[in-house]
Structure formats: C-alpha cells, structure tokens
C-alpha cells in the first residue's frame, strides 16, 4: 500500500460512508486485524458501549454465618443483569446487533458488588439495523472463528457463589494441629461455592436456549483477610449452532521458524 494516496486523501473532503449509522463518528476499541476479520465475515464496529451497576449487600450478611451468603450471590446476579441490560440498550441505540470483546470488571466488597462491562457494538456491513442479538466476552477474533464454525453467541452466562466455611471446633483444631491432613471445612466450602456458581452459569445458558457455553473463565479462592470466605465466579459466552451443523475449519498446520526457544519446564512433566 502506498502511503501517498492515504495522505493525499487528508486534503480532500471526507467521503460519505454508505453504511454510516452514526454520522457524528463511530468509536471502537478494536484493532485493525479485528476490523478486517469482522469485515471478512460481514460485520463492522458501530460504537463503544458501557454497562455499570453497583449492587448493595445488606449489613450483617457476612456476620455470624456459615454456608452460602445468598445476598452476595444475588447481588452479583442483579448487578450483572442490570449492566448487561444497559449494554443491550446502548447497542440497540448505536444501531448494533451484537457486542463483542466485552471486558468484565468485577469487584466484590463487603457491602457492595460492582460490575462494569465495556465492549464494542457491531453491526452487519451494509445492512439496515437488525436489532439486538447478543453480548459476548469473546474477542472479535474468537467471534470470527466461532461464526465461521457455524455457531452464534447468545449472551453472557454468569454465576457466582460466596460461601463461608464453618469455624473448626477446638477439638478439631487441636486434632489437626501439626498434622498433614485435609481441612475438610475449607474443601467443602470451595466445593459448595464452585457447584453453586457453575450451576447458576449453566442455568443462565439454558434459559437463553443455548447449546453450550464457551470460553468459561473462573475466579476462585479465599476472599479478603479472613480466609474463611470462598468465592467462585464463572463467566462465559452462551452459544448455539446457527448453521445446520458444526462447520469444520480444518486449520493448516505450520511450524514457525522464528519462535523463541521454549525452555524445558519441569511443571509439564509433573503434570502441573
């Protein structure tokens, strides 16, 4: 490509773009590669869209309790739903049909759970707005591969669970001191959190009539300094088959010659 033509174009008046939905200017956080990839499957960016919701967790929810803190799990679900609803509305307003590359920022505080979603709304190139279809945290690249495989995203499927492990009795504590033993109260709390979150995420997928959920990201572990509160958060993109069957994309195998040397990793031998 010759830069001359590009620079000469700066002296000429801007060309009207046929499909410009927003004559005031389009914003997008996609890279050139992503724009080109989207274009190759018939999509283009429409605008950046946002959704933010903070939900309160009532006082006392975390005190003097063990087991799941339902208030926190529900506040997470509520905040997620509210933020996703805003993304949907902003997407439709921008003339987009879907939102890709949604960045999910989640912050869990004792008294509030904060969700911030940021993504780029996209629309079908050269077509009239077709209405809202999906929200996905897949990158534009993954969206392109998914589409070429015959699938379509439906929405974010999410689930969270916060569980407080019981305190050990003095007798249990004394018996476990200095021993190499499992701490079943913590194992159980983690299990309960994991099962709760995953089940909710799957339920979210089912209610969207999804056939599956891809690219599930999980965040788990003890929360805060206390160490007895276990959190488990799962976020993925619910998908369904759009074509009659899965389309094989048959990747071409290549051996790159310019990769840095991969060092031997002991972890790979141990299976870790």
């Amino acid at each position, binding site marked *: *490509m010759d830069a*001359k033509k590009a620079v000469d174009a700066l002296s000429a008046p801007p060309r009207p773009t046929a499909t410009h939905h927003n004559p005031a*200017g389009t*914003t997008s956080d996609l890279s050139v590669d992503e724009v080109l990839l989207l274009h190759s499957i018939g999509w283009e960016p429409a605008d950046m869209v946002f959704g933010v919701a903070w939900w309160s967790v009532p006082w006392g929810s975390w005190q003097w309790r063990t087991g799941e803190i339902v208030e926190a799990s529900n506040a997470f679900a509520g905040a997620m739903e509210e933020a996703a609803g805003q993304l949907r509305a902003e997407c439709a307003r921008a003339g987009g049909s879907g939102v890709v590359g949604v960045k999910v920022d989640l912050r869990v505080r004792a008294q509030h759970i904060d969700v911030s979603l940021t993504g780029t709304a996209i629309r079908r190139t050269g077509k009239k707005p077709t209405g809202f279809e999906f929200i996905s945290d897949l990158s534009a690249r993954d969206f392109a591969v998914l589409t070429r495989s015959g699938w379509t995203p439906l929405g974010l499927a999410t689930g969270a669970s916060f569980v407080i492990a019981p305190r050990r009795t003095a007798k249990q504590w004394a018996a476990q001191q200095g021993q190499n033993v499992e701490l079943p109260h913590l194992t159980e709390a983690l299990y309960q959190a994991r099962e709760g979150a995953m089940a909710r995420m799957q339920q979210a997928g089912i209610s969207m009539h999804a056939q599956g959920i891809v690219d599930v990201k999980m965040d788990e572990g003890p929360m805060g300094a206390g160490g007895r509160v276990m959190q488990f958060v799962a976020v993925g993109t619910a998908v369904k088959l759009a074509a009659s069957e899965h389309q094989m994309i048959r*990747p*071409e195998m290549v051996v790159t010659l310019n990769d840095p040397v991969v060092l031997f990793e002991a972890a790979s031998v141990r299976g870790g």
Partner: protein
Amino acid sequence: MVNTRSLSLERLSLWTVEMALEDGDEVDPGDVEEVAGSRLSSLNKGAWSSALSVSDFASCKEIGMSPVGFVQGCAVMQWAWYISNPYMGAANVLGGGGYAPNATRSGQYSETWRCPHGFVSADHRAYGYNFEQVWVEENWAKGFGLAYDRMMEEATTLGAHGVIGVVDEMRNLAGTGAVEFKINGTAVVVPGAKTPGRPFATFLSGQRLSKLLEAGFTPVSIVAHMSSVQMYGYCVTSYQMSGSGMGNWSGTVGGIGSIDQVGKAQRAARHLVRERIRAQLAGDTLHGAHLEISEHEMGEGAMSIACLMKGTRVRQFNDFAKLPDAEIVLRLA
C-alpha cells in the same frame, strides 16, 4: 511564589515549566524555536532521529514513509483543583446546608438527590450530588493539548506529513505537586504527497499502520479526553455503600439492590468521555480506543471517577477490499 487561587485557568495553563525556563519566565507555547530550535535545525544537516524500532522503521519505509525526526512536546501543569475550586469544600456543607453546585454550564452533567427521611440529625446526609468536574477536565485537556500541540508544531517545523508511533504519558513530578504531560513520536514525510493542512498523527506505527492503510483508512489525528465526575452520596447511597445505618430499622434500604446514584455517576463519566471524543471526531472513526477508569474514594459514600479515553482518529479513503478468507493455522512450535 505564585498564588494559585488568584490564577485564572488560562494563566495556570501557561504557567508551565520547560527545561530551559528560568524562574519567573513564561514560555510562549507557540514558540518551538526557543526551546527545540537547535535540536530540530540540526536534523536538516544530515542524520534524522526516530523512536521507531528497526522492524517498524523497515515497514514504514515499505509503505512509503521516511522518518525525518523525533518530535516531542511537554507541559507541566499545576493540579490545583483540590485547593482552588469552590466545590471541593462542598463536602463539608452539603449535608447540612443543602449546597447546590450552581455553576452548571450547558451540557454539563449534574444530578441531585434528596433525603426521603425528613429531619433525622444534623449529621444526616440530606442531599446528594453527582456532578461533572469541568475544572478537572479542562486542566487535563489543557495539559494534554499543550503537549500535543507542541509536538505537532515540531513536526510542522520539520515539514513532516505526519507523526507516527506516538507515545503519551502523564505523571506526577515528585515533590512539586505538578503533573507532567509528555508526548512524543516520529515525524515522517511521504515523498510526493500533498502537504495536509496539519500533519496527521497516530499511535500506530510499523505493521499495524501499514495494515490500517491497507484496510483503506488514513490516520487523521490523536484524540484524547478525560472526564471527571464527583459523587457525593445522600443518606440512602451512603447506607447502601456502607451497609449500615438507618436502613436496618427504617426499612428504606437494607435489602439487596442497585445503588442508583453510583451507577449513574459511573455511567455519566463513561458517556461524557465517549461523547466528547465523538465531538472531536467530526464524522470520522475512532480506532483502537484505549479506556482507563480510575476511582478515588474521598470518604464514606463519596468518590471521584475519572475516565480517560484515547485513540487514533481515522478516515476511510478506500473501500475495504474483500480480504481472502483468513487462513486458520495450528502452530506446532
């Protein structure tokens, strides 16, 4: 020492520190010759300078751009808003006095909330406000704008068609209470091309820039904006954020629910930055937007939210040529 309270914003922005600045002097931001003249004029004598990596350099030559010089701009701004603006003291009077921000301009965001409880105590937060901190935004825009304009002026001095590979940074100058805005890039010429009214500028360089041109877009300029919204929570917001207080006995809060005032402040900050950026686009497209959100808690139930958005404004000059279908590869290395 200069009394910051008596300085107008206009003067504040000119009260900048440059490397060559003597005490009490003022730099004319328009005068590149003074501070950068000898560096720039030596570029005409032979070797050019550039911040491009070797591969970016090679790929820019490939698309017909030649570096002519490393260009830069900086501005040091005094971040005086904590001291000099009338609202910062507002937090003290909001609860009792019902102080309302009155300097709203057209298009400026502000919203108010009122306590539903009636008189409870003198400490009760009877009012809550969200408002756009225009003075913060203006100071940021001035600092960034001055640095950017200075860089672009160096590029113009060099007769460049554009500036590529732009890098910008904002940082505190330790111990001075001041903020430095700096921005630099590599000025390039495109032999045979018309000189645009103002050189173009882009964060991209190398392969990514060449792909942008390949895709039919030409870079126009850097666009950047920072929005700033302050939220001072009324009683309900404050209870919701701290999970304590009256909600437990009055039944007005205490459940799980959306913290309306914070959500609105957060959304306002994002929408403001997007719309201000859109205004800078004038119908063009923002490419590769970068968004940074920072929150600063200023006490219980009060916070300041800043959203910084920046990217390259691009203009389509060619239709997308249909790409060959991307080949999907599985790497064996």
